């Protein structure tokens, strides 16, 4: 068994015991429910997360189950939501704050970058802010530019924050639990177009997915396709299409952006010699630029073609042209073919 297989088996899928088929959003809810039950320090709050259960229903039922002391609505202010999370975490709670859409992290941005990200550092470790900001992100829901954006790169560029984005129910639950039990502020992006589209096995037993570990979704030898979040199903579709043409694509789901699994990506590229990176955020200064940089820096001699990228365009996210904006399987396939034919 190769190292890659081994890692995939350990972290990419359920181990033993009972499992159920859940959607990604059900897995998110379940993680919160279990952690609320496990640890009285855990609180869930944000705009409309109480009786309403959140606009996507990620917190549906939680207030009914745990009461308004543990699960509550806040005023309409992202600075309040994030700032309150910082203060609660400093005073010893484990806040899970929801930002209704990732597009609305703007008003809470300074709280995230000046308070959440820096309090451990600036205080010499005297004060810490273990908190989670959960937020639905990404396109594909005809939301125009304020309900479709992928702002994760801003946060990956902010030292002090951990950044994760699951694409499967298994990872959604495991990463959220890891975040809640961790000691650092974690920005947890939920690919909203997979909320109900992504279904998969989720163990009944307690487990976590370690932050910082990627997963091999499909093994291959000709090209490494790296993605995270909402683009993963299309990346897998592209790989399947190429497989039908006899091309063997290895598909890696990063899951964690900060820190990311350099070892996993580099050993794959060293094997395949080709890499295509897929994300839906605008291209300039996006997170995949870092991945591409590291690949070419660390695996230069293995590269048979330039590292390719499929990303969002450097325009605001459009409404009518939603589907054209997003990388789909065809665009991903084409990028792979280009790298293969280089």
């Amino acid at each position, binding site marked *: 068994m190769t190292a890659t297989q081994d890692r995939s088996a350990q972290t990419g899928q359920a181990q033993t015991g009972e499992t159920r088929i859940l959607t990604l959003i059900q897995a998110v809810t379940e993680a919160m429910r279990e952690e609320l039950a496990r640890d009285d320090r855990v609180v869930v709050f944000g705009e409309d997360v109480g009786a309403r259960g959140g606009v996507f229903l990620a917190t549906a039922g939680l207030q009914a189950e745990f009461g308004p002391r543990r699960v509550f609505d806040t*005023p309409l202010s992202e600075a309040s939501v994030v700032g309150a999370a910082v203060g609660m975490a400093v005073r010893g709670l484990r806040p899970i704050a929801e930002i209704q859409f990732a597009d609305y992290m703007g008003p809470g941005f300074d709280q995230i970058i000046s308070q959440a990200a820096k309090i451990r550092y600036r205080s010499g470790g005297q004060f810490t802010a273990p908190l989670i900001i959960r937020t639905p992100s990404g396109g594909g829901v005809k939301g125009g530019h304020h309900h479709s954006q992928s702002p994760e790169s801003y946060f990956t560029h902010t030292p002090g924050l951990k950044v994760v984005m699951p694409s499967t129910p298994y990872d959604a639950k495991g990463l959220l639990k890891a975040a809640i039990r961790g000691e650092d502020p974690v920005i947890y992006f939920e690919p909203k177009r997979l909320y109900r589209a992504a279904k998969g096995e989720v163990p009944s037993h307690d487990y976590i997915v370690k932050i910082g570990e990627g997963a091999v979704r499909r093994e291959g030898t000709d090209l490494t396709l790296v993605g995270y979040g909402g683009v993963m199903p299309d990346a897998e579709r592209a790989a399947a299409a190429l497989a039908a043409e006899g091309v063997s694509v290895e598909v890696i789901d990063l899951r964690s952006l900060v820190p990311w699994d350099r070892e996993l990506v580099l050993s794959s590229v060293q094997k395949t010699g080709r890499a295509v990176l897929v994300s839906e955020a605008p291209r300039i200064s996006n997170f995949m630029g870092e991945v591409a940089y590291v690949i070419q820096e660390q695996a230069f001699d293995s590269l048979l073609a330039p590292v390719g990228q499929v990303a969002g365009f450097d325009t605001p996210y459009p409404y009518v042209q939603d589907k054209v904006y997003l990388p789909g399987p065809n665009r991903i396939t084409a990028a792979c073919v280009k790298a293969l034919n280089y």
Partner: protein
Amino acid sequence: MMTASPSISNIPPLSSPIEPFSPEPLRWVAEDGRPVRDLPARYTPELLRELHREMVRAREFDRKLVTLLRQGRTTFYAQSSGMEATQVGLARSIRVGHDWVWPYYRDHTLGLAMGVPMIDLISQCLGTNSDLCKGRQMPHHFGSASKNFVSISSSIASQVPPAAGNAMAQKYLGTDEITLCTFGDGATSEGDWHAGLNMAGAAKAPALFVCENNQWAISTNLAAQTASPNIHIKAKAYGMPGFYVDGNDIVAVMEVCGYAAEWVRAGNGPALVECLTYRVGSHSNADADAEKNYRTRDEVNSWLARDPIARVEGLLAHLGYPVDAEERADLISAVHRAVDADVLKAEATGQPDWRIMFEDVYADTPPHLREQAAFVRAEQEGQK
């Protein structure tokens, strides 16, 4: 006609200033349509009928958009049903096309009443080629340069600091324009709301801030939103007057907002008006099912009973000019026909293609966007 209306002696004549910070919302017409103050002469039956027509038009426009959504021809709606007195009244309080407006996403009734052609609003909702905003935003996020009705951003309260700046520019340029800035009750919790009002106050800029307090921000009611007893009191923090008005009474809205607008125009600095109204529909289509989880039918019904359109009808009846059922039905079906016709016209223009994605990002198109556009062009051509 005014002889029939009760004249309440302790109400100040309308030429006199309207006092801010009234303990109760200012009201001219009671819920049953009977005036509680002298009606100013300008409220002729003709004017009231016109206002009534506009309110009915807006209500039916709302209904038709819900239908379009159900038919899958749009993707989102944010009804302003129940808030017609506020928005139609507001449109009558400013100088349309001269003053500037920084609105929010629930303001299509304001847009209609300001004379934005219905087809413009419909085109924006459908995202057709006839959309002035080129299909770039969700329904209800329109803008119209000819009306100085600035294109709406979804980001709550983000229009407030720009509205302050717009008013500062109007003052700088020596115009007699004012800037109207609208927002919901929930918006007042955002930091940008505060930043905008404080800036306008410090700059003594001619901005009229109007809160369309429909008492809910999605599922969050005013008590959960803020510990202040109401919104207009917040004006004290910015050294400006805060007016409190019954937002379901179109006469009250026009009197108070009209007064506040001219007070602002006169160079006194900004003002805040709170129009107390109610969102009788769901927050948006996405909220239609969930709504029952956070508010009671009783509450909704009690506000349905205080309908602003019924109130004007009551007033008209009281004045001896009732709107009869047939007239009403004709009015409604005329709106439906107009909407249907505009929908067809808009749809006939087709949907903007991929090119609109790369236009208007900048004044020019920089090399990297030219390259990305060329990439999509090739992709699209390859798919043919």
